[in-house]
């Protein structure tokens, strides 16, 4: 390639890189830096005072005499966030895998329609979709009426909303398409002759599923789990709308540091910790599955 072509290419790519570099990469770096600064008295930060106080805050709080006392409030929020995100991934997998399997076995025209239907909710407003669940779950809402009508629950307000259950239903609902699409992609590539070979060698449908389909769809399943787990862990809207005060997650804790709590370094430290966990999860996935042999031909 000639020099002028190279510089032309560089000029073409430069604007996008500059925008993302300047307004995304640099802010992330700044955020990491803020997390080791002293917090200002009334919000803000003290620029030249470096401290690990924000990270110490994860586990300890300062007593009046400046000694450290164990404080598990934040740890609980982290644990809840992890628990709810894992539950979300598990629920999404339980519904998403059979759906992806069904979709992958449809004729081409119907397949494309189903994929389109799976992707539509992604492009709609997350806030609005979670709001719909308030209508469904609140006392006197549709779900409650349905449960009463079916005779599953006693005829009284159930208090479904503002519980961790509501949050996990909402999170699963929000990120379900992210589970289906990668699993579908790996099943779609799978050579049906491999399943026929399993049948041929005496495996019934259940064993063909366990011994051949699931192992060969593993990269897609792992991708789906990462894609659901990661945004669930950083969720803000769902716990805010459906969770109430007792179901706070990391996202809400971070937000509160920039609102009422006015502790920017702590907020930045929490966000940085979240980012680190997310990037680690991605890396583990990439190392484990990206170079594994793909199924079929």
């Amino acid at each position, binding site marked *: 390639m000639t020099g002028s072509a190279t510089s032309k290419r560089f000029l073409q*790519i430069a604007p996008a890189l500059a*925008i993302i570099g300047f*307004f995304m990469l640099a802010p992330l770096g700044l955020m990491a830096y803020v997390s080791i600064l002293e917090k200002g008295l009334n919000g803000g930060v003290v620029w030249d005072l470096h401290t690990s106080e924000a990270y110490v805050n994860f586990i300890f709080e300062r007593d009046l005499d400046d000694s450290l006392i164990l404080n598990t409030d934040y740890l609980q929020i982290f644990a809840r966030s992890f628990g709810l995100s894992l539950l979300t991934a598990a629920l999404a997998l339980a519904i998403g895998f059979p759906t992806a399997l069904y979709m992958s076995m449809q004729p081409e025209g119907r397949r494309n329609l189903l994929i389109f239907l799976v992707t539509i909710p992604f492009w709609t*407003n997350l806030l609005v979709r979670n709001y719909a669940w308030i209508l469904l779950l609140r006392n006197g809402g549709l779900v409650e009426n349905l449960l009463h009508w079916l005779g599953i629950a006693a005829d009284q307000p159930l208090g479904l909303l503002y519980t961790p259950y509501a949050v996990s239903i909402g999170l699963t609902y929000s990120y379900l398409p992210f589970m289906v699409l990668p699993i579908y992609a790996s099943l779609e590539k799978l050579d049906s002759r491999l399943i026929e070979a399993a049948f041929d060698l005496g495996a019934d449908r259940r064993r063909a599923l366990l011994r051949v389909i699931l192992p060969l769809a593993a990269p897609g399943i792992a991708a789906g789990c990462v894609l659901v787990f990661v945004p669930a862990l*950083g969720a803000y809207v769902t716990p805010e709308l459906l969770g109430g005060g007792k179901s706070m997650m990391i996202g809400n804790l971070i937000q509160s540091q920039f609102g009422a709590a006015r502790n920017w370094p702590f907020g930045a430290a929490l966000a940085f910790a979240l980012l680190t966990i997310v990037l680690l999860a991605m890396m583990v996935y990439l190392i484990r599955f990206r170079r594994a042999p793909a199924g079929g031909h």
Partner: protein
Amino acid sequence: MRVDVTNPLWRFRGIRATTWVFFAYLYLPILVLIALSFNENRLATIWSGFSTQWYGVVLDNDDIVRAAGNSLIVASVSTLAATLAATLAALGMAKGRFRGADGISGLIALPLVVPEIVTAVATLLFFILIGFKLGLLTVIVAHTVFCIPFAYLPIRARLEGMDKALGEAAADLYANDWQAFQRVTLPLLWPGILSGGMLAFIISLDDFVITYFVAGAGATTLPVYIFGMIRIGITPEVNAISSLMLIVSILFVTLSFLIGRMRR
């Protein structure tokens, strides 16, 4: 997988039923919300008759109209900026592989990887600490950043599916670089650009978390306004404006999908 669905051999028990559950789970809440938005009753749970009055109320609300105006300004400007940057980047990346290409692809995809709440915090801190006043402009900048990958991916896909010989054929027929781009590449790329731009537009229109952090006073967008309304309580107005947002998004994405498939 290529199988004959009518062959009983491929009937895995329960997957069809689960698929029904899946789509019901995905779509029933949306449908319930839209249905309730046409409820005449002030109390959102009691159905007392069909009415479009709440849409009228919503469209008469000056705050909502102003917020919608802000949303449109933000979405239009950031879509234009992001689509332009994304188109250029896609064209630059399409000219064969080079060292560092993976890194650049990764950087362009970065906004998709980082959790929204982290981006929101980082961007907020950045604007405040460099002394940038929060307002419509900060929202536009933040939106442009995360719109770039959404615009970039469909354009890139379109370019990848394009026959490289077309450009060479144009050059062979005495077109210079600019003429070849204008007369051959651009017309063929147009559906990709349009589709990418529309996706960026919806993403910007729908964004809440990042906007919520970086919007200063007077820069309230529609989702931020709706959030405030939901905080106060469930009202038929919220149902109506929420349904409107859903319908607009679904129409847009369907249109974008159809354009993306054009002349494929």
